[in-house]
């Protein structure tokens, strides 16, 4: 159903075609019916093989006929001796080869080939591998063949380094080969896994190997090899700067930072009698076994996500039984365990303190960086130089610009902030179709930078006004923030994740395009909300605010909702705690 160009034809041509098709239909239907009735009668003979072969050579997607063939072949296995079986299966393989020549992308033919190869009494894997070679030399993107190759490699124990050599050759003859780069990304972690483990044996494990570990563990490559890969991929994009496959691969090499799984922050409020916990990745507190121990006693608390829409979230909260920590004269010690990961974090609430927290500060600087170690920044620096050279030759190459941005972030996100912003501006011009993507990415980087600055200043104020923000992210990092200023940006909503700002007291969000306040959900300390010049249009949009018990001050000037009749009366009813209302 693909790529059939519509051709205008005369009535006579049409009539001839119709007749021809009618004839073909008759032959086809007769063969099909013959197959079906033979199968119904349980006949497993050579004629059935002939008939199905005839139909499948023109229509290899007719899956049921492959099934019938397999039934026949399995039957023959039981009545013939090994040599005969070997011969029958070899005949099947040559039939399949002719099918694949005509239709190299048929799921049915490839699956049949894999099935036959696995049942052949004396398989010839070298021949299968060379079939793959030939097929890939005709179309190096044929994913059926790539998958079949992986099966052959696995079944016959082809050494991983030999396969890596194969991709070297393919990439050497044609850099623009997404499939080869992909294959490398799966081979390298096997051949050059990240230390400290010694390199694994170069042979693939035998057939009965356990399933691969989840992606969090399997995609890492040792640093030395990583540096060689940089060189290879750089050759590729200097040869053809518009070849996206190399750039995609390069981005994979650059951006593989994986955070340690841990509880990054525990916060406790004496006043609200609540504990908030931030994990390094989204979890479901119930299923990962989050456990709270207070003064040595495990507590039976109910963990809640900060917003009902978030079933998995980095931040979870729980209310303590009334009176447990409200006595200001006592000190309390909390421990939160992430049972599944065998990790925990302690937090002490001292006498006289109304709140306390304990957070991980060691990783702050590394949070958003690449995983390359510091000694090797000289390498990244030279990568950046090379990309800058390329950019001088190709000033409007978007792949190069984006890569420069990523390298700058890996090296010194704050130091390169100005240049990064300038490159983003160019990117949005040269690739306007994806400007929304660049805006969101730039927003993310600006937020990361602001978090870093906040960390250095050791304050609980997060201020990021007038930065063209189109989206909010990393909100789990802002659990302790009491004052946020996001005014003069292009935000359209305060998403459910915004409710992770559990300590928030003041929200400044003037001059955005906010129409949705979903994230202002049960924020226990929120007192002041400034939303001047946004797009809040109905009273219903303000509903989430009703769940914030301490809200005192609200600025809605310059919003469509301000024109609603009787607004003050309605708001007094909806938000009784508000004392200062600006409309």
């Amino acid at each position, binding site marked *: *159903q*693909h*790529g*059939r*160009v*519509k051709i205008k034809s005369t009535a006579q041509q049409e009539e001839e075609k119709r007749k021809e*098709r*009618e004839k*073909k*239909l008759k032959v*086809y*239907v007769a063969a099909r019916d013959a197959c*079906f009735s033979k199968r119904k009668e349980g006949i497993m003979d050579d004629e059935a093989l002939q008939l199905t072969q005839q139909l499948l050579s023109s*229509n290899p*997607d*007719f*899956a*049921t006929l492959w*099934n019938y063939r*397999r039934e026949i072949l399995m039957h023959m296995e039981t009545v013939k001796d090994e040599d005969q079986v070997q011969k029958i299966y070899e005949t099947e393989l040559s039939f399949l080869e002719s099918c694949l020549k005509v239709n190299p992308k048929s799921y049915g033919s490839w*699956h049949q080939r894999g*099935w036959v190869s696995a049942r052949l009494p004396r398989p010839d894997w070298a021949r299968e591998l060379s079939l793959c070679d030939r097929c890939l030399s005709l179309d190096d*993107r044929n*994913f059926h063949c790539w*998958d079949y190759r*992986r099966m052959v490699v696995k079944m016959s124990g082809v050494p991983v380094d030999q396969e890596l050599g194969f991709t070297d050759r393919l990439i050497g003859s044609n850099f*623009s080969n*997404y499939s080869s780069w*992909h*294959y490398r*990304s*799966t081979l390298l972690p096997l051949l050059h896994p990240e230390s400290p483990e010694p390199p694994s044996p170069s042979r693939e494990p035998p057939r009965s190997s356990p*399933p*691969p570990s*989840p*992606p969090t563990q399997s*995609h890492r490559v040792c640093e030395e090899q990583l540096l060689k890969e940089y060189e290879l991929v750089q050759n590729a994009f200097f040869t*053809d*700067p*518009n*070849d*996206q*496959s190399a750039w*995609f*691969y390069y981005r*994979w090499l650059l*951006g593989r930072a994986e955070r340690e799984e841990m509880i990054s922050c525990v916060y406790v409020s004496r006043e609200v009698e609540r504990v908030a916990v931030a994990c390094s990745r*989204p979890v479901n507190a119930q299923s990962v076994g989050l456990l709270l121990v207070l003064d040595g006693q495990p507590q039976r608390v109910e963990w809640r996500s900060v917003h009902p*829409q978030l*079933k*998995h979230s980095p931040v979870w909260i729980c209310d303590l039984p009334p009176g447990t920590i409200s006595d200001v004269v006592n000190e309390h010690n909390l421990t939160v365990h992430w049972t599944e990961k065998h990790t925990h974090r302690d937090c002490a609430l001292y006498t006289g303190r109304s709140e306390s927290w304990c957070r991980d500060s060691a990783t702050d600087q590394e949070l958003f960086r690449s995983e390359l170690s510091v000694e090797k920044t000289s390498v990244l620096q030279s990568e950046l130089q090379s990309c800058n050279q390329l950019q001088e030759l190709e000033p409007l190459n978007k792949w190069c610009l984006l890569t420069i941005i990523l390298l700058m972030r890996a090296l010194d996100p704050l130091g390169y902030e100005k240049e990064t912003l300038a490159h983003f501006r160019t990117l949005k011009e040269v690739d*306007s*179709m*994806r400007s*929304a*993507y660049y805006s*969101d*990415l730039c927003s*993310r980087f600006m937020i990361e930078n602001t978090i870093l600055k906040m960390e250095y200043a050791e304050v609980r104020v997060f201020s990021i006004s007038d930065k063209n923000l189109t989206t909010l992210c990393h909100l789990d990092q802002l659990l302790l923030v009491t004052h946020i200023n996001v005014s003069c940006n292009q935000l359209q909503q305060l998403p*459910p994740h915004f409710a992770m700002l559990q300590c928030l007291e003041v929200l400044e969000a003037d001059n955005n395009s906010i129409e949705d306040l979903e994230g202002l959900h049960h924020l226990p300390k929120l007192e002041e909300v400034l939303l001047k010049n946004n797009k809040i249009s109905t009273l219903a949009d303000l509903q989430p605010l009703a769940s914030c018990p301490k809200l005192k001050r609200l600025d809605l000037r310059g919003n469509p909702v301000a024109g609603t009749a009787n607004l003050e009366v309605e708001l007094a009813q909806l938000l009784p705690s508000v004392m200062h209302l600006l409309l």
Partner: protein
Amino acid sequence: QGTQVKDVIIKPEAPSTLLLDRHADYIAAYGSKKDDYEYTLSEYLRMSGIYWGLTVMDLMGQLPRMNRQEIIDFIKACQHECGGISASIGHDPHLLYTLSAVQILCLYDSLDAIDVDKVVEYIKGLQQEDGSFAGDKWGEIDTRFSFCAVATLALLGKMDKINVDKSVEFVLSCMNFDGGFGCRPGSESLHVVIIYCCTGFLSLTSQLHQVNADLLGWWLCERQLPSGGLNGRPEKLPDVCYSWWVLASLKIIGKIHWIDKAKLRAFILACQDEETGGFADRPGDMVDPFHTLFGVAGLSLLGEEQIKPVNPVLCMPEDVLESIDLKPELLS
């Protein structure tokens, strides 16, 4: 030398308005060509063909024009002893067609026409120890089949009958360096059909937080070509069906705004055939029901108001899913 961008050029005379009536007529007439050679050749996927036709008719508000009773009887006749459903009579059951059949029966609110418990048993029996699903008893493993399994069970409200945790583990093991997914561990993110199936799978199992939405979203929005159309993987031509799969995947991971909607809309409209009705894969090619569904569904996701809202995960009208209280997770 250098990489040429493969793309099409949209001619100025290409259609630029939506020809809904034409499309409805085209689909209504399609099923009546039962003696046609090409129609017969596609018998091996008939059940999916019917699903494409009925869904696009429902999205256009034209479902009553189709022969409901005949179709329900046909589906009944395609359910096998094992519980699985085949593409047509005389063919073998398969997860692909079991899903299509269940989708059709949901459109018609007629799930009682088949033995639902047996369908569930069939699907359960195809789950492997590693959590993956075989497409049928012959054991081909593919993440597409994981999607078919959970989508069917979700529509039947029986997701708890399989080992969901294991099935999630398997799909995640197929995640790739580009944030996409392959059909088996180690396979290339070969095209967006697989990515669509895997993101849809993670949506139905409420596991979308496991997706690297920024990286995958970037790969997906890079599928948009200067013509506005989207291709299925790097360095390939744009296509209406890929446009749907990319768009739906982006919608699922909350990044649909990363493509240029107006340009995509223009591309999809240009794939209409003014004479015959229906959509082709690319402007000027032959139309078929498959691309007609994905053209119309794509326009729906782009906000076309003459078409019913479509659910990006199951490619069915939202109102049908509302009626069975099914709300797959979407990232915001």
